[in-house]
């Protein structure tokens, strides 16, 4: 299978993500340039972390107008798999591919630290290689990660089991303290109702090699590979 990593002006985790997918996980991976209209036949699109367009206006707000993002939107609407990491998550919210919005972290601090998240739903294309309740140790690095949605939307995403990850402590307990940015319902990762688009604030690409302190992030990439390579075999 082939991954595509989007490059926007101000993306700064594009090379890390590319490195993990290509060299650590070992799958064909290409960069997708923001001015292009070509998704190069990829099976999954990854929107990497960073500060696209300097976070001007609102995080992710300008990126959604780039030519490539129109293709990503159409790809997602056709059922293509899209993973948004950190700024990528913010872009997916601004694009309307995921419900809700991001507010500034509750303590108004940029948070750059290892945290824990719990897999709330492992029957997704992004977590099927993991176990329900499994705790992952992955770093975050963001200013605007305080997830917000109107109450009605929170009810819907709960009912549809769209909450994929929640902030927790090392033992897997979801507490106010563990919810470092103040996200509603402790939401750290969220998918759309159809299940082909997911965004998360933690950086799995920074936790995919033992040398860097954690390999827990691999579970997300490996899940996608399981789904897409199986699909590919079936199609052939």
């Amino acid at each position: 299978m082939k991954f595509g990593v989007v490059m926007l002006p101000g993306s700064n985790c594009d090379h890390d993500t590319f490195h993990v997918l290509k060299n650590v996980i070992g799958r064909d991976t290409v960069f997708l340039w923001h001015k292009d209209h070509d998704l190069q036949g990829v099976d999954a699109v990854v929107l990497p972390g960073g500060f696209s367009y300097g976070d001007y206006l609102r995080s992710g707000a300008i990126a959604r107008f780039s030519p490539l993002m129109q293709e990503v939107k159409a790809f997602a609407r056709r059922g293509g798999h899209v993973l948004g990491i950190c700024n990528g998550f913010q872009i997916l919210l601004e694009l309307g591919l995921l419900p809700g919005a991001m507010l500034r972290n509750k303590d108004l601090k940029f948070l750059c630290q290892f945290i824990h998240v719990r897999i709330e739903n492992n029957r997704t294309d992004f977590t099927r290689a993991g176990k329900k309740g499994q705790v992952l140790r992955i770093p975050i690095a963001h200013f605007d990660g305080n997830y917000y949605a109107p109450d009605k939307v929170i009810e819907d995403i709960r009912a549809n089991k769209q909450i994929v990850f929640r902030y927790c402590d090392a033992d897997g307990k979801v507490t106010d303290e563990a919810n470092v940015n103040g996200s509603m319902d402790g939401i750290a990762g969220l998918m759309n109702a159809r299940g082909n688009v997911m965004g998360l604030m933690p950086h799995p690409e920074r936790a995919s090699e033992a040398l860097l302190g954690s390999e827990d992030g691999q579970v997300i990439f490996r899940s996608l590979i399981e789904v897409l390579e199986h699909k590919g075999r079936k199609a052939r």
Partner: protein
Amino acid sequence: MKVRILVSFKDSVLDPQGQTVKNALHTLGYRSVKEARQGKVFELELDKVSEEEARKLVPEIARKVLANPIIEKYTWQIIQDE
């Protein structure tokens, strides 16, 4: 024509920056400040646009780009005629 658009958080959305400003004002002794909300101001200069056209155009721009309707509201006014 020049228009000014004010974007701020909806009342239902917590505004931690506004609260911090309020707390700072209280620390300085301005106890009468009951609430502080922070927002963004945009000024757009529109070329060859009538007032009627502006009434259609500006809300469209505000909704599509300047404000995120999930968390923000906006008001606007004409600050300078042609």
